């Protein structure tokens, strides 16, 4: 019973959503949107679960002085400070419990939450994303080795696209006459991205699309139930 009820719900909801895709008439057209709203409401409440887990795991680490427990202290302080400043003095045009904190704004230039957001959070985010540039360089160093015919092709395409996507590409081939302008590096790069790459991507997307349909059907029909913890 414990497992059958979720399976029945999944089946009914799945079928309803499929029908509502093709039937605009009331109530089908409306049902799909309504179910999507339910998902939003449930995911809103679920945020609380996540926060509880975060606090529980980190508090336990600190309590039992597990290895690297100091990081947990920093995590909890960060969470509490951000939530606290947001609640007490609000964000941007929203007022907090203690009002707008005009005196703090006079000193810091903005509300505490906004100050931390603009000066700490944004930069931390950009730092993490910019790591990608370093990792792409080291991954490219390992990956683009001319071992076989296929890897040679990959290597040539990679270099053409890399150069074509920079001003350097334009600079290097700007002397090529207009009559054979397709040899300009940016145009070659665009060609590679637009045709061979897109063709490969589409093949993967069609395969993945079919995979999604197959998996969805298995779930709707109750054949696939491992996401429920079943076999």
């Amino acid at each position: 019973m414990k497992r059958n009820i979720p399976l029945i719900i999944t089946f009914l909801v799945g079928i309803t959503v499929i029908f509502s895709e093709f039937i605009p008439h009331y109530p089908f057209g409306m049902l799909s949107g309504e179910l999507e709203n339910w998902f939003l409401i449930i995911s809103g409440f679920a945020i609380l679960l996540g926060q509880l887990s975060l606090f529980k795991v980190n508090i336990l680490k600190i309590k039992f002085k597990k290895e690297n427990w100091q990081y947990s202290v920093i995590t909890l302080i960060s969470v509490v400070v951000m939530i606290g400043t947001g609640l007490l003095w609000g964000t941007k045009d929203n007022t907090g419990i203690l009002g707008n904190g005009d005196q703090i704004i006079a000193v810091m230039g903005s509300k505490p939450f906004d100050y931390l957001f603009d000066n700490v959070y944004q930069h931390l985010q950009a730092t993490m994303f910019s790591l990608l540039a370093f990792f792409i360089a080291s991954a490219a160093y390992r990956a683009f080795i001319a071992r076989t015919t296929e890897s040679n092709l990959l290597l040539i395409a990679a270099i053409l696209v890399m150069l074509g996507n920079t001003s350097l590409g334009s600079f290097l081939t700007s002397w090529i006459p207009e009559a054979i302008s397709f040899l300009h590096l940016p145009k070659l790069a665009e060609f590679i991205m637009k045709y061979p790459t897109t063709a490969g991507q589409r093949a993967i997307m069609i395969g993945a699309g079919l995979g999604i349909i197959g998996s969805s059907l298995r779930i709707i029909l109750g054949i696939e139930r491992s996401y429920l913890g079943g076999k």
Partner: protein
Amino acid sequence: MAQKTIDRRWIFLLIFIGVALPLIFIIGLPIETTENVRMVYEMVENTPPGSTVLISYDFDPASRPELYPMGLALVEHCFQRDIKVIFTALWPMGVQMAEDVLDVMRQKFPNKEYGVDYVNVGFKAGGIVTVQAMGKNFREVYPSDMNGTPISEIPMLRGVKNFDNLAFLFSLSAGSPGIKEWVQIGHDTYGRPTSGGVTGVSAPSILPYVNEQQQLTGLLAGLKAAAEYEFLMDSPGLATSGMDAQSIAHLIIIIFIIIANVNYWRANKAEKGGK
């Protein structure tokens, strides 16, 4: 004999120098425009003045270096052509990104009036569900703008009921929810011209949507596209200055690829010689 490898920290150091120096000492390398960028530019050019468009800021500070310059250039172009803009965001932090663009635009276009020429309706959670609902009834999703002003009191939104009343939809997207949702609903379901800007790294997965059916009317992919857009507008800005750094970084990567291949080739030769 094993292939000689370089400690990856050397690669990291050189990339750091290669990116940092051109940002300080601008070289000013030339820019050539590509078709996808021209398509976006022409879409805006062909939009009649007075039309209303929607630009969704679906990114956060992490992707700001690539997407923010696109946002700046696009909004500037719209404002130059007297196109009214609805700003929205499928990412919570997108609202802030849109506000940052608007701060710059307020300086550049002091005559543009909030509520008449542009409006920021803010963030709405829900991704594709929200886009779907917006397509059906914009007012149900956004009964008020981000300052709490009811939609009915905003002059430029009178008569804007759903996507049919918008000249085009544009998503500056760093992931999900983002450009795919706008294509699937905005174009595929409601048939509105849809376009967008994405980070260079996610461009290959979005490019298939620039096709015969014009699921996407052009695409701005990465900083290069932003620089091309600035070039087309004849208004060099943030992206143009960032292109030098990107060019040098790419060059360093290519040099390392060459070094790796030379190492591999030498190791191979030595192995064969050893036999």
